[in-house]
């Protein structure tokens, strides 16, 4: 079983990476973690009352939950589990630790979709992941489009209100 970490901005489009992952690694069972990075809190109350960390989970839209559950049901035989995980840190060292601790095999980014900073404390994930020197899987969305998940979604891209847009890594180069 392989453990894949897929950075997401909780848009339906970001789930295209799940397809790409299945297309590429679908011959084994996959444990997929949808990952979103948030800035760590410096507020003493936030640190003391860590239960507040469950808050961002409430901010995930029903549509998104529905969409990844649909995917999981569609590929029951290939997907062992899909879970959502939040990271709290803004250093490459933290990410590296996390990747090692979670025993992540691959990190998957899509070339053409730019991840939005969809929450107030979201952090641009791509530059940080690059710094970890962990080999990233950058897959072109155009290569293989098996199913269009947006068919099932009543949500338009515009419905996510991004706080900032993450720089596309293509232009970053």
């Amino acid at each position, binding site marked *: 079983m392989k453990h894949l970490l897929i950075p997401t901005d909780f848009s339906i489009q970001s789930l295209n990476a799940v397809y790409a992952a299945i297309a590429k690694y679908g011959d084994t069972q996959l444990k997929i973690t949808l990952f979103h990075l948030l800035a760590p809190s410096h507020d003493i109350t936030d640190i003391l009352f860590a239960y507040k960390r469950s808050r961002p989970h409430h901010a995930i839209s029903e549509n998104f939950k529905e969409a990844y559950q649909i995917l999981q*049901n569609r590929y029951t035989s290939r997907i062992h589990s899909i879970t959502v995980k939040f990271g709290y840190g803004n250093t490459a060292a933290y990410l590296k630790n996390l990747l090692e601790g979670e025993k992540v095999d691959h990190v998957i980014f899509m070339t053409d979709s730019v991840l939005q900073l969809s929450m107030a404390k979201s952090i641009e994930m791509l530059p940080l992941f690059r710094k970890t020197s962990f080999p990233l899987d950058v897959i072109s969305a155009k290569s293989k489009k098996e199913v269009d998940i947006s*068919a099932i979604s*009543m949500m338009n891209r515009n419905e996510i209100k991004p706080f900032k847009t993450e720089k596309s890594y293509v232009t970053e180069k």
Partner: protein
Amino acid sequence: MKIQHRTALIFATLTISIVLLVSMVEYYFVNQNTFEDFYKRLEIRAIIAAKTEFEKAAMGTSAYEEIRKLHLETLPNEKEYIIPVDPTTNQPGSNPLKVNDNFFKEAISTGKARYRDNSTFYLGHLYGDDTRKYIVVISAKNEFIDAFLYNFRTTIIISIISTSLVSLLIGLWFSNIVMKPIRSVTQKMQDISASQLHLRLPTPEIGRDEIANLAKTFNNMLDRLESAFETQKNFISNASHELNTPLTTIIGESEYALSKPRNMDEYAGSLHVILSEAERLRKITGSLLHLAQTGYNGKNQEFKQLRIDEVLFIVKENVDNIIPENNVYINLTLIPEDQTKLLVKGNQQLLELALANIVLNACKYSRNQPVQITLAASHQKVILIIEDHGIGIPKNEIAYIYEPFFRASNTGSFNGYGIGLPLSRNIIRMHNGELEVTSQENVGTKIKITLPLYVL
């Protein structure tokens, strides 16, 4: 009496009775304690008086007198009696006091006795050796205790009265808060009359309390009522319209056959057409009858385990029968691998009716452009998306599409009654599902139906 007032009253009575009980217990014990205190004071005086009287020789009077003057204030009406006890009869020699005999008997046998006459207190103290005994009696009026108890009583009465007022007010406020949601539900219910059955009570999304449940139950009842009303109201117009089309064909075909003598083949052809139309007619009357029978009386609704994809294929077949030139595609790319994720609990006829209504609308309003039906399942729900590329619904009219007989302003050139969608929505709601519509004028309409999964 309103429940609100009753609650307030019960609350107030409860509080007041508790306060009353506490005050009474307090008063009793305070009263007892102050008596005890006063008797102790009298006792000290009695002992000192006895010592002064009988130990003059040993100590001299002055020492005791001095102690008495220095440390003991004179009590109001303080009096001192020394009564000798007759050693032969063991009875007091004389009784100058208005005190009953028991007082002396007790003093002689136990060495100490107490007596109270209203606010005058007596304390007897036995003193002496084997040969001579005296009873020293000190009496005094307890004015302190009178004033103290009077103050205490007033305090208690005032506090009881103020507590009653406060508890009554709090009770009213409290019951007002408790009853508020019920009142608001009642108010909203009053707005819903027979002509406005499409109105619903607002149900809070997160609410799982009793009131939210009540509102939901009311809404379910209203769904059933509304559907019953609508079916009743529209049955004739619906039926006549549905029956008219095949009848027109039959009449037309017959007139065509009878207009002049024809050969056998032509007659046979006409009869075939008439037969097929008559069969369609029978199908329609049958289904209408079924709708009326099974529909909404609540008794014959059988909810069984159904596979939603099978229902969908039957709907597709029905649509093919009604509009042969349709372009309906069923998209199964997202269908779950596990087939138990396609099971729902429902009534086959009703679900078919609801879905067929929506798919037929999609075909009709898009003039048979491609209609895509996507089927998927999340962990709790089966999801159906029906997407067309038709005329859409104007943005400012989308709020009214569930109102019976409402037809959007751009539907002028299409036949219809404005019944299909409300009916479908009611059927979906009966299955605890949801129906959502998003649309863009001249681009298309997307309808999302979710039904809860059948729990095995």
